[in-house]
């Protein structure tokens, strides 16, 4: 563990903004909320934020992205596209680092998604331990309030200085630039960081009443409780917000857009979500999940069971974005999971 003064860290960030060819991204405020966005000055960083509107996955899988450009002037010519902007992303919370780790597995699975993977490889992730928690988060219950890896550098606020954990050479390379101002952490400082990490785990208002490891079997047993799912889905708009803001949702829709000249066009992908009515519609108009309640149930099944069965991860990291942004307030995983848990023996 290393220690650097905050003003040194800010100086480093400003120097990177000024001279590094990579794009520097940081958490900043937007109205009353926070977002990851391009940083103009280190001053703009808000590292004591609670949660951002969208997770940082937008840098590896943009909301809208061109995959192929084509021309039809002289027969069909296609050119694959991957716009990779190397980036340093500052201020990622542990639950989002865990989500990125999960997404890395998903996109590296065959068929490999090079559009995601190349962007990911060209990113440096600077994490920060939480100082504030969102009212909706339950990262403490999901084991994602802190992480041991998944970052290139990890910061912990110690008042006038940051404790910095090094996760990779991409991270330590950044510290090279300020090597004179970096020192080893003292045993007391290390204890402080450990204590801060222990304490944050109890700072969450929302909680799961049981171990998340029990989710896959709980959800298998409750899949058929149609009344439960229907009742809870009654107010659902099928607006997809709970998918779009989720750091572990990765579905997308691919469409071709031809230019008005009709001679060229592009194939684009855009984020999609299983809560949207057209999501499970296949050619011919058949819809696998026509009812709101079926789609509603599907999301919880994905988060707590399906992805576990495939990749071994509980695909909810407890960030609370879905519940905080669902207008009718029916998307809180702790609410649904705890209700199912309490009802399981009835």
């Amino acid at each position, binding site marked *: 563990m290393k220690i650097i003064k905050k003003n040194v860290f800010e100086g480093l960030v400003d120097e990177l903004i000024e001279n590094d060819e990579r794009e520097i991204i940081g958490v900043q405020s*937007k109205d*009353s909320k926070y977002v990851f966005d391009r940083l103009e000055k280190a001053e703009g960083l808000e590292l004591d934020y609670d949660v951002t509107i969208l997770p940082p996955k937008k840098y590896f899988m943009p*909301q809208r992205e061109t995959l192929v450009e084509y021309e039809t002037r002289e027969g069909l010519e296609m050119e694959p596209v991957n716009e990779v902007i190397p980036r340093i992303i500052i201020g990622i919370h542990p639950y989002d680092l865990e989500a990125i780790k999960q997404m890395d597995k998903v996109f590296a699975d065959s068929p490999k998604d090079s559009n995601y993977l190349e962007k990911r490889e060209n990113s440096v992730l600077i994490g920060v331990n939480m100082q504030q928690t969102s009212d909706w988060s339950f990262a403490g219950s999901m084991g994602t309030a802190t992480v041991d890896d998944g970052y290139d550098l990890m910061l912990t606020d110690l008042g006038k200085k940051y404790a910095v954990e090094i996760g990779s050479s991409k991270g330590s390379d950044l510290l090279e630039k300020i090597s004179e101002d970096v020192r080893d952490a003292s045993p007391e400082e290390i204890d402080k960081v450990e204590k801060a990490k222990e304490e944050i785990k109890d700072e969450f208002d929302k909680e799961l009443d049981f171990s998340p490891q029990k989710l896959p079997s709980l959800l298998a047993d409750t899949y058929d409780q149609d009344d439960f799912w229907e009742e809870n889905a009654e107010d659902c*708009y*099928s*607006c997809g917000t709970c998918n779009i803001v989720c750091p572990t949702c990765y579905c997308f829709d691919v469409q071709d857009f031809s230019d*008005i000249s009709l001679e060229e066009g592009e194939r684009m992908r855009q984020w999609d*979500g299983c809560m949207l009515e*057209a999501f499970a519609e296949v050619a011919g108009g058949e819809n696998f999940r026509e009812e709101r309640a079926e789609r509603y149930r599907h999301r919880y099944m994905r988060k707590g069971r399906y992805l576990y069965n495939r990749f071994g991860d509980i695909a909810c990291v407890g960030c609370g974005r879905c519940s905080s942004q669902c207008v*009718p307030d029916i998307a809180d995983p702790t609410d649904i999971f705890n209700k199912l848990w309490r009802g399981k023996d009835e």
Partner: protein
Amino acid sequence: MKPEERPKAAFFDFAGCEGDQLQVANLEEKILDLLNIVELVSFREVMTEHSDDYDVAFIEGSITNSHDAERLNGIRENADVLVAIGACATIGGINSIRNVQDFEKVQERVYGDEREHYEAWEKAKPAKAVVEVDYEVHGCPIDREEFLHVVQSVVMGREPNIPDHPVCVECKLNENVCAFERDEFCVGPVTRAGCDSCCVNEGAICWGCRGLIDNPNEEAHEEVLEEYGLTAEEVIKKFDLYFAWQQEAREDE
């Protein structure tokens, strides 16, 4: 496409503000691209000629009296493809606010003492309430890019890509702070996306100009609006700015 193969297109206006035709006139350099795929034979915004020989008819404005309806029927007979453009033509638009108001008062407000001389329906209707409509370009006013996309689809005989999900999708993709988190109200959760949530991006709310999605959860939205502090009457007003005709049509189904 060879110039002589281009379908002939004509614009017609009914009760509306011509804001949509203005959007087309303002296509700037893209107007040439448009002219590459259609031949304009009637377009009041930019030309004085008029022709009754057309394949594609673009209809702007809502239908508010029997004279309008007759004219629209004539256009339908003449055209191979009929495209409604703008909220007035697709969903009744702003004009349909009066559908839920006292008709006599509306007439008095609009025509004053002359109201006897004007024949007007009690309710403003979209084109599809009168004739069969083949394509729709939503919005008030329409989006130029979407207009071009629909024209292209018409020419190629394809289904255009028009979203059937709520504005919230685009609003979240754009990472806006939700109106409900700013102590405001919004009908985005029941309104058809496709405008890139432009009003919310500018710090406003969605008023619903693109009309309801095919399967909106209006009941939930009414409850939610009430929960967030609107009175029942205000909730109805929220929905009536653009949705009056659509809501009535849904109830009749």
